[in-house]
């Protein structure tokens, strides 16, 4: 039902599968890559954006040119977008439901006397 509605609601930009058009350029054959940047040593790589490139090497070089022109990064990861599997927001309810009723996982659940001090 959901899928049907989504389908009829897409506009005049052609058929879209699972919310994204073909990520490989038909004209150049260059696939889409996702770029992750580590802004400094000690921090995680964080998603910065995406770009098209012929191969991984070129994706890294392009990522350097567009995402680190002002020293924003010390390390770059690139991965072809097609290799990323994303959770479905429509299923978010069921997916995260097990976490909702487990308040005892949080330290604030436990009421301890003040004498204990910082714990």
């Amino acid at each position, binding site marked *: *039902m*959901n899928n049907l*509605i*989504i389908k009829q*609601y*897409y*506009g*005049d*930009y*052609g058929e*879209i599968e*699972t*919310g*994204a*058009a*073909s*990520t490989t*350029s*038909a*004209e*150049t*054959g*260059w696939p*889409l890559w996702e770029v992750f940047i580590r802004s400094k040593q000690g921090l995680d790589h964080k998603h910065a*954006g*995406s*770009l*098209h490139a*012929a*191969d991984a090497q*070129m994706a890294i070089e392009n990522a350097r*040119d*567009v995402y680190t*022109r*002002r020293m924003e990064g010390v390390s770059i990861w690139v991965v072809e977008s097609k290799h990323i599997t*994303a959770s*479905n*927001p*429509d299923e978010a309810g069921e997916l995260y439901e097990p976490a909702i009723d487990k308040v005892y996982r949080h330290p604030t659940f436990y009421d301890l006397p003040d004498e204990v001090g910082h714990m």
Partner: protein
Amino acid sequence: MQIQDFEKIFQGKIDTEIKIEPKDWMPDAYRKTNVRQISQHAHSEVVGMLPEGNWISRAPSLKRKAILLAKVQDEAGHGLYLYSAAETLGVSRDEMIEQLLTGKAKYSSIFNYPTLTWADMGAVGWLVDGAAILNQVMLCRTSYGPYARAMVRICKEESFHQRQGFEILLVLSKGTPEQKAMCQDAINRWWWPSLMMFGPKDTESTNSDQSMKWKIKRKTNDELRQQFVDMVVGQIKVLGMTLPDADLKWNEERNHYDFGEIDWNEFWAVVKGNGPCNKERLDARNKAHAEGAWVREAAMAYAEKKSKKLERKVA
């Protein structure tokens, strides 16, 4: 669930300031409006490189040349951020490029004006980028997540563009009589087109209401235009120059500057393709795209060859 239920959930998110992300359900018209707006914005960044590229080889010093190169490179990057944001909505890069090259898609009309003197680099940076920044700062809070994130990145970089432009004019304004005249002339030519960048009046703008309801936009064309006028009137005093508008004066009651009527005939003529440089800009883009084709093909051929070599090694 019915479509109406999906719409209700969607509008509920917008109303409570929850960003819409690519895989979320969204009304068809929201998707289309965003694709149109983001791709036009991307095209504007790309075409915007042309009037400035015109002066890279003729910048008056190595310092100015380096600055201008960096600025034009930024615009290319901004185009990429925006194309990527639009791609998350299901439109392909090829499709957007084709719409630009065939003239089907619009870009900001401001880039259909010529850059005649070096002072134009100053006026473009100060006025054109200045006007764009007001719009872009607003768009940092737009409701579609990838668009908002692209805008945050762009705004961080854009501030240098405006400042270097103002500095170019500041130097000219302290120069020889000829340089001062050149400075004033550039301001005179770019002032009205800059005001037009905010689009038609609110009473004439067809997309405004729905875009405000969906929080794609958060300020109307006229609000942004007024904000721009108020800002520039203060800054031009530092230059010791004037704005070419006899009706410009402070309005105590409104707490804003009043300004003269924009030549809307000119506005619509340029939008419809009859500006001074519309044809030249499109021709330049088409030429660049055609002449770059072999590079794109060669890169792909090289990548394929390398991956085959790797396969052989593994085997």
